[in-house]
């Protein structure tokens, strides 16, 4: 009974704080040399909107996205607070005013993991449970 109560309590806390490790079925990954061990939700939003452009060590942030996947829809709505159409239009606005470049996109978790693992300063997201290889999984505060 006691262990049952503890399990229920842990589940309750996990539900209240879904961002501790992942949210919406996705996890955030970075290149292993990225000098951060955690990120907060606002950091993630600003990175994927191109408003935060460098890591603390001065290395340029290379953020990559997925194209048309469930993980992508989940990530955008959870962290960037835009749906896929709104995010697409946001980046087209940057492109057609010369303010930014459309982020590189991938159609599978594995391709994205490979790119992030090999690219200094890279950050992306994959479905929970994806093998992340050399890439670093970043807990979200």
């Amino acid at each position, binding site marked *: 009974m006691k262990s049952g109560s503890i399990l229920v309590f842990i589940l309750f806390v996990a539900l209240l704080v879904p961002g501790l490790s992942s949210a919406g079925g996705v996890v955030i990954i970075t290149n292993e040399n990225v000098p951060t061990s955690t990120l907060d939700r606002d950091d993630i939003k600003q990175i994927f909107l191109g*408003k*935060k452009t*460098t890591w603390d060590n001065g290395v340029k942030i290379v953020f990559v996205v997925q194209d048309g996947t469930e993980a992508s829809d989940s990530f955008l709505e959870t962290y960037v607070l835009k*749906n896929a159409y709104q995010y697409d*239009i946001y980046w*087209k606005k940057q492109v057609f005013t*010369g303010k930014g470049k459309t982020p590189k996109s991938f159609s599978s978790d594995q391709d994205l993991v490979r790119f992030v693992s090999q690219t200094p300063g890279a950050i992306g997201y994959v479905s929970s449970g994806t093998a992340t290889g050399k890439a670093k999984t970043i807990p979200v505060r």
Partner: protein
Amino acid sequence: MKKATFILTITLAFGLFAGCCFAAEAMGIDIHGFISQGYLKTTHNYFYGDTVDGSLEFNEFGINLAEEPTDHIRVGLQILARDFGSNGDDKLTIDWAFGDYRWKDWLGVEVGKIKTPKGLYNETRDVDMLRTYIFLPQSVYSEILRDTDLGLFGAGVYGDIHMNKAGLLSYQIIYGTPNISPNESVSQALQGTTAYKTPIQNDSINVDKKYVVGLVWETPLEGLRLGATYDNSPIFTTAHATMSIPAIFLYEGDMVIGNFDKYTNTVISAEYTVGNLLLASEYIRTAKKFLITFSGVPHDGGYITADGWYLGSTYQVSDWFHLGGYYSESYNNTADREGTAVSRPGNDIPHRSYFKDACLTTNFIVNEYWNIKLEGHRFIGTHRISALDQVPDANGKVFAHKDWNLFAAKITFSF
């Protein structure tokens, strides 16, 4: 008409091509573009071009290239051609072209032809697929004042200031000079503010120095952003009289000099997005002080303030269907909103002093590259509409109708 057919053909050709190629990248250089063709039909009055009979002189074509040679440097160029009634005539122009050095998130420097902020949407006004509406509200994004608003050849600084729990503040300050045609846009406005074309022909129009300051605050309330922009565009024109009016000592051929030593625009903006719904409202106030000199005698035009506002909303009903609408009002002179002071024989008619616009629009997203829009407007008044575009009716009158409607359709391909 031939040109419109040509643009339409190009649009369709691009569309067929889209099946195999989009957002090209060559040697690390991104290439994007768009092409639009529209149709306009008014019940009365001429809304840029022969819209009473239906006009296809309504298209845009743009292509851009951009490259980031180093982590902090960005260079790019966008070429734009546009036809909108008597404006543009599909001449190729540089829409933006600049070098940009972004030192930190909070400080970047840009030099070249730079798009200028005015309200929240001025920088993307020529790129149809980026919004639900065909026409942005004319109270803030007036077509007839487009030349002075678009962009500046000059330099600027910009940045994003992260304020933790207070949100994000983006700023932009630009100083430079715009290119303005003596035959189009704002020049038409200066020659045709009355019901009939004024008795002068502009020879040159210059804004030597203009500065623009823009702020956008992404507030802590998720989805709410607030903005403010301010610009000062002193306008200097030279013109010649096309007829004689002895009563005011103006004779055909006389040089007429116009000097707007103050021409400022202040816009405040609010936009709120929640789920698929977007609400937006903006208010603009324009202050003008001008002097007109002819026959060697200066005539003080006085100090006039104009203003306008709108409230609009768009909603993504589904992935392929978006709905939108707005109500917009603008006034030529805040001291005479009904136009009664300027209404006298041979001069203005009251509805040249205001413009009220109720718009309902639909946007059909065919796929990633194509969209089609249908839009209706109910207009009351004719402020902001060029007198030079008007054709007298059977009774020899222009702007004979205060109440009129516009139907607009537009198809766009982008990559």
